[in-house]
C-alpha cells in the first residue's frame, strides 16, 4: 500500500475542506442549530415544552449534523468529480489501487462528520444554557458509537455519491435525506412512536434512528432509548453494507 499517495490525497481534501469550510458549516449546521434555538429555547421558555427536552434534543441534533455532514462532504464532491469533467481522473491515475481513493474519501468524510458533531454539541450547549443534563457513563461505548456513526455517514456518502447522478441531487435531498431526518428519532426517542406501531417498525430501516438512539443512550441515558449494544450491532451491520456497496459502486464508476 502506498501511504505517500494516500496521505497526499488526504492533504488535498483537507486543503479543499479548509477553503470550503464556511460554506460547508453553514450548509450542514444551520438547520440543526436553528432547530435547537426554536425548540430548546423559544418553546421551553414559553412553557410549551418541558425543560427536560433539552437533554433529549442534543444527542439527536448531534447525530443529525454528523450524518448530514458526512454524507454531504463525501457525496457532493464525488458526484461533481465523476461527472462530465471527470475531475477525479488525476487521482484515479495516481500510483495507488483505486479502492484506496474510496477509503480516503471515507476517512476524510469521517473527520468532517466528527468535527461537525463536536461543534454542534458545543454550540447547542451554549444556546440551551443550563440544565442540558448530559451524562456520559460509558466513555468507551460512547466513543465507539460516535465512531460508528461517523463511519456510517461517510460510507453512506460514498454509496450515494457513486449512485446518484448530478441531475438527481435535488431528488436525493427530498426523497432520501428529508424523510431520513424526520423519521430518524432526532427530535423524539424511538419509544415515542409506540402509538404508531407500523411506523415504529418501519423506521428501524432508517440508519439515522440508530445514530440518534445510540448517542442518546450513551450521552443522556436518563431518557428512553434502544439499548446501546443493540444500536452498536446494528451500526456495524449498516457500516459494512454501505462500505461494500460504496466500494462496488465506486469501482463501477471509476473503470469503464
Amino acid at each position, binding site marked *: 500500500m502506498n501511504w505517500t499517495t494516500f496521505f*497526499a490525497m488526504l492533504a488535498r481534501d483537507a486543503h479543499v475542506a479548509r477553503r470550503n469550510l464556511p460554506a460547508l458549516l453553514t450548509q450542514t449546521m444551520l438547520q440543526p442549530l436553528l432547530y435547537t434555538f426554536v425548540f430548546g429555547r423559544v418553546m421551553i421558555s414559553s412553557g410549551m415544552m418541558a425543560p427536560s427536552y433539552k437533554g433529549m434534543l442534543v444527542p439527536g441534533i448531534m447525530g443529525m449534523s454528523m450524518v448530514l455532514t458526512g454524507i454531504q462532504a463525501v457525496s457532493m464532491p464525488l458526484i461533481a468529480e465523476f461527472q462530465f469533467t471527470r475531475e477525479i481522473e*488525476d487521482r484515479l491515475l495516481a500510483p495507488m489501487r*483505486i479502492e484506496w481513493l474510496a477509503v480516503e474519501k471515507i476517512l476524510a468524510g469521517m473527520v468532517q462528520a466528527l468535527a461537525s458533531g463536536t461543534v454542534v454539541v458545543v454550540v447547542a450547549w451554549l444556546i440551551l444554557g443550563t440544565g442540558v443534563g448530559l451524562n456520559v457513563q460509558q466513555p468507551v461505548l460512547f466513543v465507539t458509537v460516535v465512531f460508528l456513526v461517523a463511519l456510517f455517514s461517510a460510507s453512506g456518502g460514498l454509496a450515494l455519491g457513486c449512485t446518484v447522478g448530478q441531475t438527481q441531487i435535488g431528488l436525493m435531498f427530498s426523497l432520501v435525506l428529508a424523510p431520513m431526518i424526520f423519521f430518524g428519532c432526532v427530535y423524539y426517542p424511538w419509544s415515542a412512536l409506540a402509538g404508531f406501531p407500523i411506523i415504529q417498525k418501519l423506521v428501524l430501516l432508517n440508519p439515522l434512528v440508530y445514530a440518534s438512539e445510540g448517542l442518546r443512550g450513551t450521552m443522556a441515558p436518563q431518557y428512553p432509548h434502544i439499548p446501546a449494544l443493540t444500536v452498536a450491532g446494528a451500526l456495524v451491520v449498516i457500516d459494512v453494507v454501505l462500505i461494500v456497496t460504496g466500494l462496488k459502486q465506486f469501482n463501477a464508476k471509476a473503470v469503464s
Partner: protein
Amino acid sequence: MGVGVSTKELRKVYTSPPPMAMGAAGFSMLGTRGGAKKAFEIVALDRVSLEIPPGEIFGLLGPNGAGKSTTIGILTTRVRPTGGQARIGEYDVWRQQVEVKRLIGVVQQRPNLDFALTAREILVFHGAYYGVASAERVRRATELLERFQLTDRANELVRGFSGGMMQRLSIARAMMHDPEVLFLDEPSTGLDPQTRLLLWEIIREYNRSGKTILLTTHNMEEADALCRRIAIIDHGHVIAQGTPAELKASIPGGYLLRLRVSRSSPELVERLQRLPGVTEVRANGNEVDLYADRGGPLIAGIVGAVSEAATELHDVHISEPSLENLFLHHTGRSLRQ
C-alpha cells in the same frame, strides 16, 4: 533506460455506454447486437496489436470513434480490456496497475483538472501523489508554469481558465512526475497555432530525454510532423502501420485527384483508367477518385475523357501524397467526416 509499450490482440467491447469524458463521444457502432432485449454492445477495439519501442513518438491516427481513446484508456488502466494483453515495459497493465501508473503520465482528451484547486496547487498536489519531494515539486511546478506560459494565472482557481489554458495545464501536470511514457489524447485540440508549435517543441524535447510518447490525433500534419511511426486505426481495427514516409509510399500513385462530374459512367471510368500514370479509379455517385503518379499534368487528359464520355466536369481537386489520402484510400472516407 526507456520503457516501451505493446498490445497484443487487444479487444474491448462496451456493454454499457462509457462516460463521455473517456473520449467516447462519437462511437462507431459496428457490433451492435439487435434482438428483442436490445442489449447494448459496442465493439470499440478488435484485436489491436501495437509494438512501440522505448524512446519512440508513436501516433494513433483515426477519425472520432475509431478506438484511439479506448486504446489509451486501456493502456492507462482506466478501461478494462475485454480480451488480449496490454503492457507498459514489463508490466501487464490490468494486473499490475500500480506499477504501471508509476511509469505513465496521461493527458486526456478533455481537460479533467481539479476545479477545487489553483493551477499551482494542481501541479504541486499531483507531484505529491507521486511522492515527489516537497521542495522538488514546488520547483518543478514553477518551472512548468513558466514553460507553459501560465505563471501569471498560477494562483487562480482553474474554473475560469480558457480551454487552451486548461489543456496546457493538463499537459504540464502529466509531466510533473517525469513519467517514462507520456500519453497524449488529442493534445493540440483547442490550441491556437502558436501554442501548438510550442507544444510540439515540448513533446520533441521530452522525447529527446529518452521518453516514450504515444499520442492520438486526427490531424495529419501533426502526425506527420511529430511521429516516428504511426498506426492508422478505424472502427477498432489497425488498418495500416509504419513510418509516415512508408505509409505515404504505400498509396498507389501517391497523388489523388477528386473529380466532381454531372454523371459518372463505366465508360468514363474506363477512359480515365487509360490515361497515362493513372493507377486506380473509383467512382462513387458523381464523384470520381483518381490515384495517379502525377497531378496537374493529367488535367488536360481528364477534360478530354470527360467530354468524350458525354458528361460535364464541375470540379477537380488535386492532393499531393499525404496521410489524409492514405486514410481515404483505406477507408473510402475522409478523416474529417
